[in-house]
């Protein structure tokens, strides 16, 4: 059975979704256990697969048994790169599902089964995007994950969130269509859809020179950039993530953009080949500059925000700039690419932690603006501990993984002489420091009487006793947060091993 694991990772949440869809409307209590069980199956399968990759090398799985001739069926391919991404998706989805048990302020009144069905389907899409080895199959799974995320965002019942969801639909669909168009141009010049096959054909000199391949690459890149909210195309992200239900934002913010960055790296490495992409020197410089602009713009816009979640959303935009710029550094040893992959892993956990904290604030004390956070160190010490860990990681303080990913990114930038990227990275770390220390200051030194604030808001909350219970957060909030904070530190400590694992794929051949 162990050779079936790659596809089980994708199928388990699908069955979870079907169980919820069939049994959920009759009894809402079925939903959560089914979701958690299916995600845990995926998570365990992901770990088993990663272990298998570690010991035996790359796994190739041919759906339907259509192995030869090459490319007639759909191939699932798991190497070191996506094994790690799969584990991260597993961790995040399981933790957020635990967080989502208490639907306070989620705007999903009476729609719990639909929420969990969409949640599982979103995980199906993300897992599927990660494992697939087929260019067109990737499009279908991108659509699965996009469609569900549109719905999850629009479920919030807040007019601004709905408007953001509509804009997201337009931009997301245009982006996916661009990706589809790029695959069309690839198919036009190579006649193939399997990533390995396309890669071997593009290595032929007469194909590599053709205009259609270049146009295909540009379209695919623009499509993926739209999905990951790379700077000029980031318009949909801040509103969509800050006005959607809490659990949704905790799931989407860490995963959607990072998996899209993974897709970009997969496209560079597995479809077009690093030699072909970085062979066009002008492109690499251009994209690194775009990344620099994205980092600066994201940081500056984050400084201007007064709402915690909005601020975090602009930080995501800056982080995407790190990863895209880093992946395109094209230094000799591919350290930039390695750093970008490591940053995908680390940043998912950091984003998860800060969004969990922001959601806990919003749920428990109805605080969405920075000024509302006064005196929180005393009221919720554990939550703030998690927040501090994540913030230090985002700033880039040593024992956390944020430091090491920035270290590898800067090493790559120095090797390739992209000093503007180094400067942008350091400046943005400073901005992060300013942002988070501002919050710490408010939360530590501000001493607004906590009780009066809590009561006024709690009356509106009605039956949710959470708001009233004041001190501390319940276990289902704390467990995901503290786990992810711990993982941030653990990933930082074991960075050498993880990077070595990543280098098997990213090191120049």
């Amino acid at each position, binding site marked *: *059975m162990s050779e079936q694991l790659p596809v089980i990772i994708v*199928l388990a949440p699908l069955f979870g979704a079907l169980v919820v869809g069939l049994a959920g409307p009759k009894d809402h209590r079925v939903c959560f256990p089914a979701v958690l069980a299916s995600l845990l199956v995926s998570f365990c399968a992901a770990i088993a697969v990663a272990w298998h990759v570690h010991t035996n090398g790359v796994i190739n799985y041919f759906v339907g048994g259509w192995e030869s001739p090459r490319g007639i069926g759909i191939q699932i391919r798991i190497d070191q790169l996506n094994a790690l991404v799969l584990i991260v998706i597993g961790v995040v989805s399981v933790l957020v599902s635990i967080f989502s048990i208490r639907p306070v302020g989620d705007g999903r009144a009476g729609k719990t089964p639909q929420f969990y069905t969409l949640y599982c389907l979103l995980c199906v899409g993300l897992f599927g995007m990660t494992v697939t080895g087929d260019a067109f199959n990737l499009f279908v799974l991108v659509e699965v994950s996009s*469609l569900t995320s549109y719905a999850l965002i629009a479920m919030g019942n807040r007019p601004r969130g709905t408007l953001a969801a509509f804009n997201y639909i337009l931009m997301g669909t245009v982006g996916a269509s661009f990706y589809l168009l790029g695959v069309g141009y690839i198919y*036009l010049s190579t*006649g193939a859809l399997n990533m390995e096959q396309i890669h071997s054909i593009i290595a*032929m000199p007469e194909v590599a020179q053709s205009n259609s391949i270049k146009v295909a690459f540009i379209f695919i890149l623009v499509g993926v950039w739209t999905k990951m909210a790379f700077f000029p195309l980031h318009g949909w992200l801040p509103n969509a993530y800050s006005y959607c239900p809490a659990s949704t934002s905790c799931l989407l913010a860490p995963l959607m953009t990072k998996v899209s960055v993974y897709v970009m790296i997969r496209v560079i490495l597995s479809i077009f080949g690093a030699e072909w992409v970085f062979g066009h020197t002008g492109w690499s410089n251009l994209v690194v500059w775009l990344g620099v602009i994205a980092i600066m713009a994201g940081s500056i816009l984050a400084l201007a925000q007064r709402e915690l979640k909005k601020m975090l959303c602009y930080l995501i935009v800056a982080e995407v700039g790190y990863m895209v710029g880093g992946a395109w550094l094209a230094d000799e040893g591919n350290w930039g690419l390695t750093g970008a992959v490591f940053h995908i892993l680390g940043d998912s956990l950091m984003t998860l932690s800060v969004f969990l904290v922001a959601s806990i604030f919003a749920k428990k004390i109805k605080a969405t603006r920075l000024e509302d956070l006064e005196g929180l160190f005393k009221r919720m010490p554990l939550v703030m501990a998690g927040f501090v860990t994540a913030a230090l990681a985002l700033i880039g303080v040593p024992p956390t993984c944020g430091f090491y990913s920035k270290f590898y990114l800067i090493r790559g930038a120095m090797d390739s002489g992209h000093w503007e990227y180094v400067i942008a990275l350091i400046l943005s770390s400073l901005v992060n420091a300013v942002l988070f220390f501002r919050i710490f200051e408010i939360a530590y030194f501000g001493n607004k009487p906590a009780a009066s604030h809590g009561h006024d808001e709690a009356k509106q909350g009605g039956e949710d006793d959470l708001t009233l219970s004041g001190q501390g957060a319940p276990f289902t909030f704390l467990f995901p947060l503290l786990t992810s904070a711990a993982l941030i530190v653990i990933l930082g400590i074991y960075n050498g091993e993880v990077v070595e694992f990543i280098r098997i794929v990213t090191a120049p051949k």
Partner: protein
Amino acid sequence: MKCFALFAVFITGGLLLFGTADFPEQGDPHSPPNAGIPGDGVSISHYYLTQTEKDTHVPNVVTAVLADYRGYDTLFETVVIFAAGMAIFAILRVSGEPRKRHRPITDSSINGDHRRIIIGTTCRLLIPVIQLFALYVVAHGHHSPGGGFQGGVILGASFILFALANNLTAALQRFSEKTFMNLACLGILIYAGFGIFCQFLEHNFLDYGVLQKIFHTADPQMARSHSMLGVEIGVAFTVTAIMFAIYANLSSKGELDNGL
């Protein structure tokens, strides 16, 4: 906004035309998509055209590729539809108990309205034919254009037509919300079930050939053909249910009462 739009549009158009420069001539049977790249082994298109019937006994190559060679794609395409149904339900459906009907609509009152007598009678005559045709499209997809999607959409459209000609409530009495949501899940369950079943028989996901033992066919190819019919039926269930569900929610603002 208009300036930006023009700019974006012309950049896109220019890029597309730039890529057109080295297009193969249209209709050229030896172009890369149609015949592959020389030196890369068998072209997938040629393989499908020449080997499909030997591999699966299905003359309609498109159906065979859709349901078998690239069946994994089609599974997730069905999942996309299912997700859309769930999404619309999650976005639009008004929660809680549906509002009580002022005037219960029974069979007698459906066609009692004189303005609707022509439409009603025509639909009564048409709908059975449409539904029969939809079933034919699903079942005959192996030999002629058609298959689960087309059949499913037509079947769904027949319910939509019924709702348009009479009213949504009357349609929902025949095809209730619970039924279509369960039907949608069931469709995917059938599709994925075929795949999982192959896994239990120690083959890869969706490797239908191994189902020979179950269907008692003479060769694995015939088992593939039968399984394709099975998964097409699953697709048709989901598509029928979701198409009607989308219409029902869109036309009644999620209240599922008086629609269009």
